[in-house]
Structures are given as C-alpha cells and as structure tokens.
C-alpha cells in the first residue's frame, strides 16, 4: 500500500514535469539573449525537426554526468536503482532495469499501461542511449504524446532554460506540499497532522530504513581483570594538577550573571571571600594570641630605663602599637627594637643628659 502510494506521488511529479515543459514550448522555443540572431525554428515543420533531432542524437557523444544525475534526482522512481548507475558502460543493463521499473510503475498506476510506460521511458531514456533498439519505441511514444519534448532536451541548454527547469522541479515539489497543506487547512487539525506526516515521510526513501538498536552493555566481558584492591601505581602530583587545570579550562565559560562573575573573581582572588572576614590574607596571625598584640611592655624589659622620659616615651609607643591593627606581632616587635637601637646609638648624649643612667647601671648589673 505504501509503495503504491509512493509510486503515485512520484508519478505525479513526473506528470507535473511533463505538463510544465510544453507550456513554454507551445509557441516558439525561448531563445537566450546571447543568441538573438538564431533563426526561428518554430516555423519549421515537424518532419524536419525530427530529422534534425535524430542527427543531433547521433552526433551527441555521451551523456553529461551532471545532467544525468539531475534527471535522476527529479525522478525518484529510479533512485532505488542508484547502484547500477555507476557502471556507465553497461547501458544495456541500465536500460533493462529502467524499462522494468517503468513497467512496474505503469502497472501500479493502471489505466493505459502502454502509454504511461512510453511516457516514462521517453523521459528517462531520452538521453541515456540513443542508439539502442528502443529508440523507435521511444519516438513512437513521443509522437503519441508531444513531439516537441525531446527536441528541447537535445539542444544544449541555455542558462535560462536551465534555470527554468530547476524552477519547475522545485515548484512541483512545493506545489505538492502546498496542496497537502491546503487540504489540511480545509479539514482542520487532524488532516493537518496527516499532511505533516506526509512531509516527514518524504525523505524516507533516501535512507536505509532499518535502525538497529544496540545496548552498549550487552557485550561479553573480556575477562582480563578481576575486581580487587585498587592500586594506581606511582603518583604524579604535578601531572594530576595539570590534568585538573586542563579540565577546568575545557569546561569554563564566561559568566552569565553577576553572581557567577563574583564567584569567578573570588576564585581568582580578586575580591573578598564570603563570609566577609577582614583578616583575610592575614592567616599567619591566626595562630597568634591577641595578648601578644596588646601587651607589648615585655619587649621593653632588659634595655629600657625603668623610669624617666625614655620609659615614658616607649610606653606610649607600646600603647600606640597595641592599637594598631595592621602590623603583625613581628613588625611591632621590630618597631620597638628599632627604637632600642636608636637609643643605644645615642647612649652618650642620653647619659650626659641623665635620661639613661639609672637603667644602665641596672642593666649592667643584670648582665654581669
């Protein structure tokens, strides 16, 4: 049933092609602009034309590959036999198969079988093998139908004709679909779906119909490995890091919203990490107790006078430092030590002034 349907459709296509052609060859054959001076053939009588046609047929060497293909594309009936068209030499064989196919089609269509067959053959075989024995049949067929047809085919195609032919092909296709569409519109949604189906069915003849479903887990195991403790051998840490890096690169994409952008920046270390912590980046201070930051007097022990202006000054320095949130403990200590060195370098003047003396004695006593 389905094949029959297809035949019918294809046949409709062919008929359309046939019907389209003569419409523009009723009067005289269209001339290209390139050759405006060509004599008017339209006025010639039929016999002369056939003579000329035969001559042309004899003279023409071989079919052009492109034209041949073109034709096959226009007549899907033949497409089933596509394999055989590669063997160009064996034209006899091709012809046989085509004749048979045409016969089949004609049978399928019913009606005037002989005429349909002749029509089909005249379309198809017009170019393939002019010297074959079926030529006379062919011409007879043409006489029955339209004697103009093959003549036009034989002429070297002008651009205009070529364009026209392509047009008519595509048009016949679209007309068909429009037809089904119109039908669908008329009958409402159900019909529409049907028309749709027809469309999706259309490419089916071109493809192999069978799809083999394969379950990928259906194979027989090789039986090499036995599950046991996993042992991955020597580990390469840099190598693994780089693999991870490549993977991240392969799956990274430009951010698609502001949150993603912030996440990206966080990962790149450009903004504060959530939850916000103002000690971020000061991780080395995390293990230091706060008392070490605040009680700095211990660093004065051993060198600073117990009283006097220097002691007073240094205690103020310690208070100041204890309130500084930006220095590390080590920096604070260094800061105090810097003053120690400074005062020690000025020891002479300080002793003279009397700001140092009490301490010196004590310190020396301690050291000794």
């Amino acid at each position, binding site marked *: 049933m389905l094949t029959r349907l297809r035949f019918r459709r294809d046949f409709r296509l062919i008929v359309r092609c046939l019907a389209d052609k003569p419409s523009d060859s009723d009067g005289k054959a*269209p001339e290209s602009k390139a050759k405006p001076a060509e004599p008017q053939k339209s006025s010639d009588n039929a016999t002369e034309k056939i003579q000329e046609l035969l001559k042309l047929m004899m003279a023409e060497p071989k079919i052009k590959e492109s034209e041949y293909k073109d034709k096959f594309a226009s007549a899907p009936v033949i497409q089933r036999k596509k394999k055989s068209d590669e063997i160009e030499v064996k034209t006899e064989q091709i012809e046989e198969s085509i004749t048979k196919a045409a016969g089949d089609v004609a049978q399928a269509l019913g009606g005037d079988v002989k005429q349909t067959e002749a029509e089909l053959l005249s379309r198809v075989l017009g170019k393939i093998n002019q010297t074959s024995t079926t030529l006379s049949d062919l011409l007879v067929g043409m006489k029955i139908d339209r004697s103009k047809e093959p003549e036009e085919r034989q002429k070297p195609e002008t651009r205009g004709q070529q364009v*026209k032919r392509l047009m008519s092909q595509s048009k016949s296709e679209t007309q068909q679909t429009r037809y089904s569409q119109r039908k669908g519109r008329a009958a409402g949604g159900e019909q529409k779906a049907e028309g749709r189906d027809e469309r999706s069915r259309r490419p089916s003849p071109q493809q192999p119909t069978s799809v083999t479903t394969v379950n990928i887990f259906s194979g027989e195991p090789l039986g090499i490995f036995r599950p046991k403790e996993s042992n*991955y*051998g020597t580990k390469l840490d840099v190598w693994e890091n780089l693999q991870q890096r490549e993977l991240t690169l392969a799956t990274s994409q430009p951010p698609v*919203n502001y949150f993603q952008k912030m996440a990206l920046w966080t990962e790149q270390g450009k903004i504060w990490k959530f939850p916000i912590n103002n000690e971020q980046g000061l991780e080395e201070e995390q293990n230091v107790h706060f008392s070490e930051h605040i009680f700095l007097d211990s660093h004065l022990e051993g060198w600073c006078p117990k009283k006097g202006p220097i002691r007073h000054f240094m205690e103020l320095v310690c208070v100041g430092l204890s309130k500084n949130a930006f220095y590390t403990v080590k920096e604070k200590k260094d800061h105090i030590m810097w003053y120690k060195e400074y005062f020690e370098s000025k020891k002479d003047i300080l002793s003279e002034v009397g700001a140092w003396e009490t301490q010196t004695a004590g310190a020396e006593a301690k050291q000794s």
Partner: protein
Amino acid sequence: MYSNVIVPRQWTRFACLCRSLSSVEGQKLPQNSKSSDGISPPPRKPRGPTDILQALAATVGTDPTAAHYKYHDDPYLIPLSNFRKRSYALSAEAGRKAAAWIRDEHAELFTTREWDPPSKNKTPYFNADPIIEAFAPKPIYNDASKVTEEDLKYTIQNALIDDSVTIFQLLGGASAVSDELKLQLLQLLCFYNEKEPDSMEWLEERWFAANIRDRQAATWKIGGLADQIFESMDPKTPEAYCAMIQGMAKYYQAERAHMLTTEAKEKGIPLSTGVYNSLIGCVGFLREGTALRIETLRSLLAEMHEQGISPNDETLSACLRSLSAWGGGKLLQQMALQIVAEFKRLDIQPGLAAYYYLLCLFCKERGPRFDILSTILNELEQKEHLEAKEPADTNFFITAMGVCSDHLQNITMAERLHALLMKGDNYKLVGDAYKESIYYRHYVTVACRHAPFEKTLELLDTLVPNVYVPEPTVMEEIIKTLEVGGAGDRLAQAWSQLVVFGHGKRARLVERLLDAMINTYQGQEEAVKSKMRAAAADMLSFGQLTPEEKEVKDIRSPVQKLSATAVCNIIEICSDTQDKADPHWKSVEEALQRLRKEEAAGVPARPQALADVAKKAATVGLPGIAATAVTYLAECGFEEAMPASVQVLGTMLNRPEQEVEELLSQGQTGLTGSLHPAAMAVAEAYSIAKTGGPISQESERSSSSSDSDSDSSSDDE
C-alpha cells in the same frame, strides 16, 4: 501570652551567644546536635567562599530574549551576528589584556608609596596589605633577573612553561636544581610538550579560540629539555619514568614510549595506571591493521593486570578512543562492547568521553544505522548531574546532537538530549563557542526537518538570535520549513534577519527566500502580504550603492548579483497592488530597469509572470512600466512577448485585441506620431517579438524613448 513571646526571644539570644562563643573560641563547631536540655540547634554547615554566590546564581534563570551577560545591555550594542558577537567579546577581552600589560610592563608605577615610614617602605610594595596576588604585577623573568628556587616553584605551579625554563637555565641547569624541583619541572614539560598552554585568565579568548590542538601525529620534541632533564637524573625515580612515558605517549611518540616502558619493567620500576592509559591511547601508532592492534590492546590490558595495577575510568575511555580512531567495522564495535562490559563488571561506568568515542565508533556517516544513543541517554538521565572528568567530555553533546540530526534523524532524541544539556549546570559541557554553534546547527536542522511546525517556531524564537545565529545552510533549512508551513509573515521577518545576521548579500539565500515568498504569497492575509511586499522591495534596494559611493569605494570583490528569476519574483510580489500611487511601483520600475541593463544573472524562469505584471501595470495606469516589461520580454525573445504586447496595447488604447492586432500589422510608419510614446514602445516590442529583431531602423531611438518616458508617463497619466 506574654511569656510565650519572651521565651523564644531568650532562647534565640542564648543560641546567639552560644554560636558566638563557639566561633570565637578556636572556631569550634557544635558536633552533636542534641544537647542536654532538649535544644537542638542545627549543626553548622561548612561553606566554601563561593557557595553562597553559586546558590544565588542558580536563582537567576536564563532569558533567551536578552543578550549574553558579557555584552552591554543597550540596544545599539547588542550583537546580532556571529561576527559581531565574536568581535565585541574579544574587544572587551583586549581591553582587559591591555590593562594587564600596562600593569606588568610598568610595574614601578604601582609598587611605590612615598608616604610610608622607612621601615615599611618595602620594595616592591604592592598596593595592598596583605598582598593580592591577582592584582600584583606578574614577575617578568629575563637574563638579568635574580631568581631562586622559589620562583621556579611558583612558575611550575602556575604552569608558566617559558618562564620556568628561563629560571631553570638561570639557576644553572640540571646540576644546580634540587631533584624534587627537577621532577616537577619534568612533569610540567612532559604534560605540555614544552609548549606554553592557554592562560586561565582569558576566558573569552579560550571561548572563541576553537582550538584544535589535538593533532594526531607524533609531535613529541625529541632531544628537548625534558629529555635532557631525564638524562641528567640519577638515580631515575619511578616518577621520572612515569612522567616521561606519559609525555611521550601523549604526543604519540609510541616507539620511544614503549622502549622506555620495557626498560622500566626490566629494572623493576613500578608503573602506574596513567602510564598504561597513555600507552593504550597510542597503540594505533605502534601497530598497523585492526587485528594486530586489538591484539596489542588486549595484551596491554593483560599486562596491566599482571603488574597488579587496577584500571580506572580513564583506562576505559583510552581504550575506546583508540578503537574509535581505527575506523569502523564489526570487529572493533564488538571489541568496544566487550570492553564496556568488562569495565562494568569492575564497577567502572563509562563517562561522557567514553560515550563520545562509542558514538564515533558506531554512528558512521555511511553505514548501517545503530541506535546506541537511546541507551546512553537512559543511562545519563538517571544521573543527578553530569561531572566532567576529562577534556574530551565536551565533545559528547555536539557529537550526540550530530547523530540525532544526521544519523538517526530523530527529533524526540534530540529534544531529550537538549533537555539533558539544560539540566543543572550541565551547560558547561558544551565546550566553546565553536562547539556550541555546531551543536545548535544540528539541533535546528533536525527540528526544521522533523519537528512539528509550531514547535520548530517556538524553538527558533528561543534560540535565535541571542543564543545562536544560524549559518547560511541552516538559514536555508529554516526558510524551507517556513515555506512548507506557509508562514508568510515569518518569511518577511526572515529577510530582516538575513540582513541583521550579515547574510543579506548572499544571493543564493535571498533567491531561495524569494522563491519561498512567491510560493506562499497567495493565501496570505492582506497585512502579511503588505509586509512581504515591503520585504521584497527592500531586497531590491539592499546592497545597492549610490553612484557617489561606488566611486569612492573601490570595491574589489564584485557583489553577487541576484538572478533574473529573483528580480522577477520581486517584481511579481511588489506589483500585487491595485493602487497606482503605491510606492512599490517604484521598486517594480527599478527592478525592471535592472533587468534591462542586464544587472541580473540569467533570464527569468517564468516570463508569464512578467507579462501579467505588464498587463496589470497597464490596467492600473502605468504605461511606462508596462512598456518596459514588454520590451524586456521581447528583447529576451520570450514568446510571451507577443500576446502580452497585444493585450497591453489593447488595455492602453482601450480597444479589443483584434483591432489592436490589425493596427500593429499595418507596420511601423502609420503609428509613429499618432500614439503615446509608451504605447509606441509596446508596438516596438511587438515587432521585435514577431520578427526576432527590431525591424525599424529607429530601434535605438525607440528603446531610449521607452526608457525616458517611463517617468513622465507614469507621472502625468
């Protein structure tokens, strides 16, 4: 009542206190959720720094009608063609790169702070404390810089190959660097084959790069620095051997990799899974012929087992990669299934990369059609989210969609696959811009061919133009679908899309669109028809430069001309109006002029349409246009010219056709002077059509008159 309020408040305060106490004192977390008095605060969840951001980002849906976030949200700055998308995004990236360049090249501008006390005056000083690595100038290493092993460590960690090689040389080469660092450098060199990898910083660049780095050829640098370092190592550690073998195998230096493996085995050095994976990956470079290769693969697996090394999921994908690279055929496919089953027994599930290789192996362009995709989809749809395990994973979706489109031609499968890609954050697996666009190309193609019309339209509305801009081939497919669906307004819209996408000058596409419009024109509503007319008129004027522009711009590449058929279609569409004052008649006129000046390729396919237009123009009262059309037909030698000219003249003179024919048969001389110039031109055309050439010697004059009078006649009639 009162206590009811107060109690919870106190509890919360208490809980607050507890929390603050526990967080202050050494960041201890409450481990047990049950406390003695029946209160059970939920255990604290440790969160990473980006967790909150990711949760927030997940609440932002995608808006297909908006441009991507990276573009400015401004109608004038939203890119609508592939070229613009690319150039806008890369321009922004170029700006960022320029800033980074200044920062690196002129670091001194950012590294001093003059108001610092002397003790704090560090050089270099970075404008933040603690220092922010991401904003600090990148160190530049040259021959003069003083380097330490720390620098080498830094460059290795950041995969800066060129810098690390420089530092290595500066430090004094293989003899002066510690063994541990040497090994690290060796791994780095082997991994990248001494080529600088892509930077992590420039995301857009990578996204648009379409880098096809995977060249299947032996690209390993023989005698390079890696070889030298390896030679200099003594004793050679297992790690060094592994790195060397993996590097060689990764860049397909199969012979040497195998030699080194044999050497290592003889010395009793333990190898690793990674080594065997890479060896499996380059079997094809070692052996010729499918049977031999499969045999080698088997023996490698067996050897792995003998050595007591267990396989992982990368082993599976390496096996399948090799198999898929060796072509197709029943033997390889069977082997692949066996391997998958074997690993399944070991509880190793194939990853996306493995599925990708399976698809490559089974779904060949020409060959029997296998449906393995449905099993794969069933498998993947069960998973919560897909995890990327290796870079090849990003090939899965594009290949699977290709299989849906070309191999299976199945829209349901394609939709399932797309749903999978859109689930969660699976979209990251789409790869880069190039892969994304191929993915959508396949998807739109299969939808156009096999999906119901309404669904296709819905899909197109979602994707085009912000997510995906169709390429010319896909556009053709879309036009075909619209034509079959008979959507006239969509076709008119398609023209403006063509212009926006930058395909407006592709004559083939425009011709295709015009065909589609002509075929669907009848049966559309009047509003749609007028849109289509406007589109057709616009097509005519598009890409036409004014004469001044032509002079200024010396256009080297010739603009593709529309075919005469296409121009004819434009004329046909534009002339569908009964109103004489309709501006589209101007377009008709211009199109006719173009036809006559032979600015269109070929000749029209349907001269009858042109003849109809001529008749209509005459009826409406525009004899100039009618005359031009008929003259053109006659000059081209179409047989339609004769009846057309008779009819047109009949309409013009308001006489029956018989009479007109008689009049014309009298010949030229009697008519001259007595007729309107336009009518005269039609008469000329008749004679040209009849005799195949202009009879009268005044042919030149007549054609020029028909040109010149077209304006005047259409004005004053």
